[in-house]
Each structure stands twice: as C-alpha cells, then as structure tokens.
C-alpha cells in the first residue's frame, strides 16, 4: 500500500547499512535502487506497468555502476589487465 | 394302576351355560387357533377345570343332575387313560359320596357322579377366577390356596435338624 512506502524505504535503508561497500558509493546507489523499485511496485498496483522490465533496468544499472566502480578501483590499484570492454 | 380304564366311552359333561367360560379359561384349543395366555386362561386343559369343579362340588357336597340337552359333552373319559391317579380319585370320590365301595363296579355311574359334582362345583370355580382385582390366574391361585388351607390339617413341623 502506497501509504506505507516511506516506512518500507526506511527499513530497507536500515538493512542496507550492513551491505559491503564494494566500490565507492555502491551502498548509497543500492539504497536508491531499492527505493526506486518500491516506488515502481507501488505504481504497478495503481496502473500496471512492465514491472519486470523496469526492475531489471534498475538492477542492471546498479550492476553497471558496480562494474565501473570496480574497474576504476582496479585501474587505481595499477592492474594492467583492467581495460574497459 | 397303569393301563386301567374302566370307562373309556363315558362322557365328561358340564352344564351348557359354562361351555363358553370353559373355553375362555382353558388354554387348549382342540379346533386349533391362537392359545390364550395363562394369565387369562389359568387351566391347561378343560379336564383340569372340570376336575376342579368335581373337587369343589365334593367339598361343598353339591351335586347337580345333568339332563341331556342341558349339558355339554366336552370330551370322553378316555382322556384319563394315562392319568391313573385321577381315575383313582374319581373312584374314591364315588365311594365317599355314595358310601358304597362297589359303586366302582358301575364305571358309568362313577363318571355320572363326577359330572354331577362338577356341575355343582363349577359356579365356585368361575367365581374363584372372576372375583378379585388381579389377573385370572392370580385370583384363582389366591382362592385355591385359601380353600386348601381351609380343608387341610396344619402342616407337620419339620423334624429338628432336617
């Protein structure tokens, strides 16, 4: 129910605190992704959307963020194998 | 005496007005049909009811003469064939009633006397059955018990230690 959205988001942000910061900003990005997913789920209840595709887009975006972050980290660490694909 | 039957064809008779009651108060149904229960019909056979009449007629010394069309033949004396003791009792009653032992030489007369005594005693039998508030068998049992106690001497006491 939409009116419990803020509570849910608060609970998720609380749980996210234990998530490993795999690259700078990863945790914050994951939190935002989850908040966005919650909003999408609520929207889907009001007006059906292609919820799976929307959620997928969010997940892939987070994945790409992580990949870029790890790549940048590796480059900073001087890993010669790290080249952008 | 087994097998002794001095009056095989002699007729056993009662006054005609008691025919229906005799049927009602005895259990046998010579012509077939449902037998009444003993509570209502206390006498097993018509003979037993007649014999009770003989006994009560003898006790009260009442003999009623039975002429032909005023009486009903319910059986012949041949039905006493296997009841030696009843034959003996009938002969003894005849001797006691007439005072003549040789009356037994005239078997027809013995039965005649018995029929007359029965006719005299039947009203008492009917009264015994019908008077009272209980079932027929209970009324009869009570009255017969009273009559027995009346005529019998007191019972001898049991010997000590018996």
């Amino acid at each position, binding site marked *: 129910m939409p009116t419990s959205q803020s509570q849910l988001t608060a*609970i998720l942000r609380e749980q996210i605190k234990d998530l490993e910061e795999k690259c700078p900003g990863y945790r914050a990005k994951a939190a935002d992704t989850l908040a966005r997913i919650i909003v999408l789920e609520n929207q889907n209840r009001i007006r059906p959307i292609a919820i799976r595709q929307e959620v997928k887009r969010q997940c892939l975006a987070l994945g790409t963020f992580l990949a870029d972050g790890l790549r940048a980290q590796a480059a900073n660490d001087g890993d010669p194998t790290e080249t952008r694909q | 005496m087994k097998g002794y039957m001095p009056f095989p064809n002699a007729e056993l008779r009662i006054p005609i007005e008691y025919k229906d009651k005799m049927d009602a108060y005895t259990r046998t149904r010579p012509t077939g049909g449902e037998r009444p229960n003993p509570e209502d019909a206390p006498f097993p056979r018509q003979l037993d009811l007649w014999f009770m009449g003989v006994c009560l007629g003898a006790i009260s010394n009442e003999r009623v003469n039975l002429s032909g069309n005023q009486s009903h033949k319910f059986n012949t004396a041949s039905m006493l064939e296997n009841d030696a003791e009843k034959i003996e009792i009938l002969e003894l009653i005849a*001797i006691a009633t007439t005072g003549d032992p040789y009356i037994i030489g005239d078997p027809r007369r013995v039965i005649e006397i018995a029929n007359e005594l029965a006719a005299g005693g039947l009203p008492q039998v009917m009264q015994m059955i019908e008077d009272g508030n209980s079932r027929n068998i209970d009324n009869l049992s009570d009255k017969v018990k009273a009559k027995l106690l009346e005529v019998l001497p007191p019972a001898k006491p049991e010997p000590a230690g018996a």
Partner: protein
Amino acid sequence: MILFKRSHFQNFRMLREVELEFSTDAHRPLTVIRGENASGKTTILWAMQWAFWGDQILPEGGRDFRLHPLDWHRTDGPCPISVQITFETEVDEEGSTGIARRYNINRQCVEEVTADGGFNRHSNTLSLYELTDKGTQLKPHPELFMSAIFPQELREVFFTDAARVLSFTGSELSQTTKRKRVQDAIRSLLGIDLLEDSRDHVRWVQTEINSLLKESSGDEFLKELAGKIDRADRELQEQTKTRDSATEQMGELEVMYAETSSKLEAALVRGDREKLAGDLSKADADSKRYRAQVEDCIRMRSDLFKDDNLSSGLLHRHIGAALEKLWELKEANQIPRNFMPVLEQRLEMGECICGEKLVAGDEHYEHVRSLMKEQQLADDTSSRLSYLVSAALKFASSDTTGHQWLGQLNNLWQMQANAETGWREAEIGRRKLDLELKDLPDTDVNQLRDHRNDLLRQKERVLERRSAAETSITRLGRELTELRDNQKNWMKRENKYREQQSQLEAAQDLVSVLQLAYETIQNTKMKDVSEKMNDFFLRMIGAGRESDMVRRAEIGPDFDIIVYGPHQKLLDPDRDLSGAQRRSLTLAFILAVTTVSGVTAPSVIDTPISELSGAVRTECLRIMSQMSQQLILFLTRADIEGVQGVIDEYAGKVLTISNSTHFPQFLVNDPHEDKAKTMTCTCSHREFCGVCERVGDDSDPDLRRRMGAVGARA
C-alpha cells in the same frame, strides 16, 4: 496519509440528499455522527464503502440489494444514485508520495423500479477528479487508483460496522477465516506483500542474467555453470512453493484437527454412541430374559392346576371317608377275594368241593364255570377295591401333598415376583438408555476419532513434505551459493564477464537486502503489532493485573489472535471472553496494525462501543481517539452517555442525523417531509434543535437546546 474531508450522498437508500463534513484536525481527529437506530448510520457506512469498492461489497454482490430509496415509485422515473467522497492523500496516480493532494471520487448508477416491484441497475460509473487550484482534473484508471489506496483486504480495518467489529475475533467465523483476515490485514499494511513482489522480481532479473550467460557465453564451463545455477534456482523456487503451500496446508490442518478434537471431546462427554448402543442391546436382552422368566413362572403356575397333589389335597377328607369304607371290607376279608384258584383247581381235578364229579359238558361242570365267570367279575372289583385301599392310604398322606402343592405355588410366586422386579428394573434401564441414545446428537464418536486420526496422518504427510522441501531448500541454497561463488570467481578471471558478474552481484545484493527487510518485518514488526495490540487491549478492558482473568493477548506465528489467562492458560476468545472484550480485541488489533504500519488513514466505525460499559467504554474511545489519524464514529445517544468528556476533548466535528419518519413517535417536531429521508443538523452531542429534538431531550440534564438553529439540512 489519507484524510476524508467530506462526503455527499444522493438517493442512496434513505440518504436522499445528505452532506457530511469530517474533522481533519490532527489534535482533534474524532468526528462523531450522532444518530439513533434507523437514522441512517449503517447506510452511510455502506454508501462510503460502495463508493470505494462498488457492488462487490454489497450483500450478495449487490444483485438483489436495493440502493434506491424504498419509497421511490416507478412513476418517479429512473433513480439517479451517487456517492461522492472528497479526500486528501499524499499519493498520486504515479504512486509517489509527496505533497498532499485532494481528490474527489464519485460513484454513480441508475436504478429503475420494475412493474413487479424489482429493479434494474445500470449505468455504473466511477470517476476520480483531482482538485487543484487550477480546477478539477479527471484522472484515468480510477479503479486501479482506489484499489491501490484502499485495497479490499483492508476494508475491515478501515470500515467497521457493529457486526463486523468482530470480524477478526467473532465466534461465528471459522478459525481459518479469522486467521486469513488477520494475515491479509498485516501483510497489506506492513507492506509484506510489496516486499515479496520486489524480491521475486529481482530474483527474476537474476535468473534472466544467468539465462543470458547460459545462452550467449562462449565459455563452456561458464555455460555449464549457468545451466546448473538455472536448474538449481528453478528447483529452489519449486521447493519454496512446496514448502509454503505445505505450511499453509499445515495451518489449515491444525485448525481442523483442533476443531475435530473439540467435537470429539464434547461427544465423549455427552456419551459414546457405540457404547450406549451396546449397553442398550444388553439391557434389551436382560429385559427379554426377565420377561421370559415371568412368563415361565406364570405357565408353571397354570400347570399346577393339573397337578394331582392339588386334587388330593382338596379331597383330603373324602379320601379319608372312602378309605374307612374300604378298610371295613378289608378287615372283613371281603377284599381281596380269591376264589378263582380253588374253582380252577377243582375243574382240573374234575371234582367239586362237594364231592360231585365235574365232567366237561355236564351241567355241574357248566354251573361251576358260570360261577367262575361271575366270580371273575367280582374278583376284578374286589381287586380294584383292594388296590384302592393302597391308593387311598397313599392319598391319606395327602395333607403332605397338599402342603407340597402350596409350597410349589409359593415358590413360583416368589420366583415370579423376583423376575418381575428384574424385568421392571431392566425396562427402566433400557428406556433410560434408549432416551439417552435418542438425545445424543448424530455424532458418531468412532467417525470423529477416525477423522481425527486421518487428519493426524495428513499432518504427518504434510510435515514430511515440508521437511523434505526445507531440506532441499537448505541444500539448494548451499549449492547455489557455491555455484554462484564459482561463477563469480570464474568470471573474475575473465574481464569480459565483468559487466555480467557485477550485474549478478548487484541483483544478489538487492535480493539479500529485500529478504532481510522481509524477515525484519515478519519478526520485528509483527512482534510490535502483537505488543501494541496487547497494550491497547488491556488498557481498553482495564485488565492485565495479577487478579484479572485476561492477562495477555498476542498474534501467534500463524496469525491467530491468542489470549492468555492466569498461568499462561490459553483462553478461547469465543468462549472465555465477553462480547465487549472481543469487540475491544478487534479494535485493539485494528489500532495496533495501523499504528505500527504507520498507515495514516481514516477509521470509520459504526457503534463500536454500544456493548461496552463503564470504564471499558471510556478507555476504548480515548485510546482510539489518541491513536487514530482520523476517527469517524457513529454513536447513538446511549453510546454517548458517560463519554461526553472524551468527545469534548477529541472531537473536531460532531453532527446529528435523524430519520424524518420518526415523527411523531420519537421526534418532537414535524419535519414536513413526504418522503422518508435522513436529515442532518450540526447539533453536537450536548445539544438538540428543532430538527433532531427527540421526546425526552428537553428534560435531559446532559442536553441543551441549541439556540439559533436553522431548519434541517436535508
């Protein structure tokens, strides 16, 4: 947040033209709508629900449920019916929360009265408008919007009438129904179902990425890994479904098992039908046996009347007299007489005793022979007489045989009396058992036992299935973790898989967080709801002390509302709580679940405190008013008695409704209405006016006449 601002009703039963305004004051969230029985309170409740959910919430889906006013005639033409509700919420049609927006929902239909007195309903429409400073804007998909704001599973939470105030605790509901309602309310309000959906959709993304790897990867090992992960994931989902379904089934079986056990116990207390039938059969046999004994005794008594002991006893004296005569003959040697042998001998010798020769054929011989014949007869009689002497002697002791007969009679009488007593007692026992058996409800104890055993076997099977599924889930979880680790490690070695690997990791992280949040809500938030419910409940009923029967209420893991008495004794809400306590429990639950979930929405309740009294009633109202964002209560004058202070403190708006047809029996003033309708006025709980004045109001010390009141707003 949702707040009702006002509502307008047109031709909805007796709400011909009614407008209500509700309090939106955060400090005084209570709106009281005062109305006596049949004034339209319940109708308003139905109308508001109809506005949100349509015909489906009406009895029997609204098929035969009249909405038009009862006195609407065919000649009045089609009846337009509408309910409008203006409300405020932070949700828009995109679903995002933010600033408060105002909406107006308008549900309409038309009913036409038919010739046979029935009606046809048509032209059902639902419109949703957003009210802005720039004007009204029609919104698309109003059904979806309303079902998102007010899901149907929360209907009982937000709209509660006097009957449904027991919708979570009522004894007439099955345990399964109550459990489901509690579960649905909690899941919806706490967002559990939303979290589940989110988690499932992210898992799907995981599967999608993995499938892509399986299909498009040139690396055989990776492909194989992806294939294994895919299979394991599918199996995990299957096993999870199996486990969840087994858990649900187990819950239902537990309820059925408990119900069957209860019925069995009750049946055993009332009487075991089979045992009773056995006892009855035995009593019947006893009765028949005693009856047969009685009949035997009677028959044997009848047979006594042919016994020679009787006749010999009766003729005791006559036999004595006959014996005397016979004895005289015997003493005179007249019996027995035996001339026969002498005569026979003489015939044989051929010489008579007088010395004359006896030759066969001559006269003397024949004379002797005829004498012999005569003598034969006399001898026979004499023999008989001689025999009768011994017979008479035997009968002379007939005093003994007579007494013997009496003894036999007495014995038979005694036996009969005993048998009759036995028969009577057996008959009494038999009839008593027969009545007991007839009175037993047709509950076969064995059938119940068999059913219970069957349920136990089913439980065992379901438990086995669940255990197997859980074992599989654990194994598959480990397997998947291992496979994914392998996949991660393999993909790390190859830079070209960095992107997919990161996507998988990200999806996995999101699933983990969502799962943790789900478990937190299930455990922590559920516990919070349970504790809050307990707190509200005990405060409402003034219980919880050592001396009280009710000590604690909680929501069990299966969503049962459980109440405890002293020493942790489980109380049955249906049997051990009063109606008032059960109502309080429902209200406490509703309050708890809305408080913990943070859902700020109105509670509209019809006469919730009517069966409560004294302190319970005051406390209930106070707690509800304190904890609610917006509380709209329908109360009668009797409900208001004793709680005027609470209403003074918390009510932001009070208005009164009256039924026009209650004049002159209840209403003092003639409303001059030709149609039955609900009338409104702004009288508070301490006032009356020309519209709502009822007989007796004038003399009620708690009420005063409202001065300057205008006519009815109808």
